[in-house]
C-alpha cells in the first residue's frame, strides 16, 4: 500500500514532466481496463429534508431553504426528462433525514425508478444491513456514501449535529451495504474539507479493506471538490486543478479496476480533459435541486451545490463521440434481486 509520504510527494511535485508521466500511466491503465468508454448517469434529488448540520452543505438542517420532498407522482415527473435524454443510470439523493425519507419512501422511489431505469443507486442517510437488503430487493443496486473526511477532529468540527455526527457508523456504511447485497458501492472524500494526503491514504485503506472483505462488489470512487452554493463560499477549496488531476491519476494507478466518477461540480473544460485520465463515469444534464428538472423554475430552486457544467446529455454525448469515446447509457440490466 502507498505511504503517506509518497502521496504527499506526488501532491507536492509540480514538475510538469512528472505530472505528464503520471497522467500517461493513468490513461494507459484506464484504456486497458475500460477501453474508450464512459458511463453516463444523472442525479435526481428526491428530498432536501435533513436532520444533520454539516457546515459545508446547502441542505443542512438550520439552513433557511424551502424544504421539499417529492411525491410518487412528482418523482415520475422528474424522472421523465432524465429518461427522455437517454439516461438509464440514475443516482437518487436525499438529505439525511430518517424521519422524512424513511426506507419505505426510498423503496417506493426505487420501484418507480425501476420502470424507467436500469441502474438504480442511492445516496442517502446510512442505514442498517437489513434495510440495505430490503432496498436491494426493491431494485437498488448501488449505494454512494462519502466519509467526507477521515480526520476525526475535522469531522467533528464540520458535522455539528444530527446522525451524521457519528463517524464510526458512517465509516461502517460500505460494509453494511455490501452485507445487504449491493452490487456497486461508491466511496469518496470531499476535497478541500481537510488535509488531502492523509484523507486520501485513509480512503485508499478503507477501499482496500472493502475489496478484501467484499471482493464481489464493483467499487467506485468520487472526489467532489467543495463548491459554492448560490454563489456563497462555504469553504475555500485548496485543491487546484493540477492537484485534482494528480489525485485522479494516482487513484487510477493504485486501483486499476475501480470506477472513478466525475460530477458536474467541475467545469466543462476540465471534465473534457479528464476523460483521458482515469474517469469512467460522469453525470450529465444534471440538476442538484429537488424538483429542478421539471417542477420548479430556476429562481425557486435550492441546489445542494451549484453545477459548473450545464451541458445537456446530448451535448456531452456529442463531445464524447468527437473525442473517440463510446457513451455507455446502460451498464446493467435489472434482474430480480434476491431478498
Amino acid at each position, binding site marked *: 500500500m502507498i505511504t503517506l509520504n509518497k502521496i504527499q510527494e506526488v501532491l507536492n511535485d509540480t514538475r510538469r514532466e512528472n505530472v505528464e508521466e503520471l497522467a500517461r500511466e493513468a490513461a494507459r491503465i484506464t484504456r486497458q481496463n475500460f*477501453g474508450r468508454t464512459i458511463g453516463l448517469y444523472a442525479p435526481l434529488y428526491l428530498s432536501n429534508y435533513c436532520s444533520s448540520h454539516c457546515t459545508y452543505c446547502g441542505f443542512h438542517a438550520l439552513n433557511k431553504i424551502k424544504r421539499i420532498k417529492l411525491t410518487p407522482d412528482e418523482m415520475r415527473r422528474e424522472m421523465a426528462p432524465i429518461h427522455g435524454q437517454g439516461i438509464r443510470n440514475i443516482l437518487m439523493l436525499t438529505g439525511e433525514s430518517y424521519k422524512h425519507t424513511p426506507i419505505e419512501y426510498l423503496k417506493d422511489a426505487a420501484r418507480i425508478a425501476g420502470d424507467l431505469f436500469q441502474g438504480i443507486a442511492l445516496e442517502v442517510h446510512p442505514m442498517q444491513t437489513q434495510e440495505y437488503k430490503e432496498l436491494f430487493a426493491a431494485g437498488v443496486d448501488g449505494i454512494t456514501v462519502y466519509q467526507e473526511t477521515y480526520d476525526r477532529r475535522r469531522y467533528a468540527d464540520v458535522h455539528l449535529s444530527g446522525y451524521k455526527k457519528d463517524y464510526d457508523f458512517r465509516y461502517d456504511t460500505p460494509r453494511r451495504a455490501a452485507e445487504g447485497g449491493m452490487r456497486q458501492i461508491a466511496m469518496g472524500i470531499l476535497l478541500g474539507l481537510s488535509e488531502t494526503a492523509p484523507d486520501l491514504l485513509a480512503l485508499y485503506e478503507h477501499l482496500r479493506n472493502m475489496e478484501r472483505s467484499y471482493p464481489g462488489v464493483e467499487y467506485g470512487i468520487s472526489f467532489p471538490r467543495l463548491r459554492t452554493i448560490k454563489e456563497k463560499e462555504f469553504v475555500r477549496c485548496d485543491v487546484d486543478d493540477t492537484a485534482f488531476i494528480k489525485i485522479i491519476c494516482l487513484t487510477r494507478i493504485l486501483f486499476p*479496476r475501480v470506477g472513478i466518477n466525475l460530477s458536474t461540480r467541475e467545469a466543462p473544460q476540465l471534465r473534457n480533459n479528464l476523460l483521458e485520465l482515469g474517469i469512467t463515469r460522469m453525470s450529465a444534464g444534471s440538476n442538484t435541486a429537488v424538483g429542478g428538472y421539471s417542477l420548479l423554475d430556476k429562481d425557486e430552486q435550492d441546489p445542494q451545490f451549484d453545477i459548473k457544467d450545464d451541458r445537456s446529455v446530448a451535448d456531452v454525448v456529442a463531445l464524447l463521440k468527437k473525442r473517440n*469515446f463510446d457513451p455507455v447509457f446502460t*451498464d*446493467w440490466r435489472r434482474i430480480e434481486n434476491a431478498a
Partner: protein
Amino acid sequence: MFNDIPLVIAGKTFTSRFLLGTGKFKNKSDLTESIVSSGTEIVTVALRRVDLERHEDNILEHIPKNVTLLTNTSGARNAQEAVRIARLAKASGCGNWVKIEVINDSKYLLPDNQETIKATQILAAEGFVVLPYILPDLYTARALVKAGAATVMPLGSFIGSNQGLKTRELIAVLINEIDLPIVVDAGIGAPSQAAEAMEMGAAAVLANTAVATAEQPAVLARAFALAVEAGRMAYLSGLPRQRPVANASSPLTGFLYDNAQ
C-alpha cells in the same frame, strides 16, 4: 492442401475459429468493421450493455445478422444471477447461446468455477447452448461436460491483461482430456498468443481488449483471425515438438543396429 474440419458447437458449424468480444470499443463502427474484417462468426455481448430502447446506440444493431450472438452474463456474482441474466437475454430476443461468466471478484475478475458449474447445469437443462468461462481446472471441466456444456472456455490470463497463455500447461490438460471444443478466452493480447493457443490444439480463441483498444481495431482483428488460422494449420500439420536439448545425430543406442548394416 489444407483440409480442416469445421468447428462444430451444439450442432452449428463455423468456418472461423476466432471469436470476438464487443466491450471497450470507442465506437460502434470500429466494432462492426472488426467483425467484418476478421470474419468472426461468433461475438460475445454483455447483456448489461444492451439497451433495447435506443436504436442508434443499441449494440445489437451493429452486429451483422449472419453472426451468432453469444450473450454473456457479465455482472453475475453467483449461479442464480447468471441464470436470471441468461433467461432475460433469451426473453429480450438475444437467443439461447450464453457464455456463463460468474465473477465475484471485481479486482481480479477471476471466474467462480463452482457457481459456473451450477449455472451450466440449470441452463443446459433448459435448452440453452452454454459456453462456460472458467479458470482452467480439469475437475471443473469434467463437471461441465456432465452438466451439458457446449464448450469449455478456460482463461489464458487475467481478463484484459494481454499477458497471453499464463495458464498454458493447465489448458493443455483440458485439450488432452476433454471431448468438447476448448475455446481459450481472456488475456490473449497479440495474434502470436492466439496462434500459440491454436498450435496447442485449442479449438478456437476469443479476444476483446487487445482488438478494442488497438489504434486500428479492424486491422488487428484481421491479424488475429489470420493468426488463429495459422495456428490451426500448424497444429494439423503435426507441428514438430520443441525439444529442450539438441537432438544427437549419433544416438547412444546406435550400436544396436550396427550389425544390421
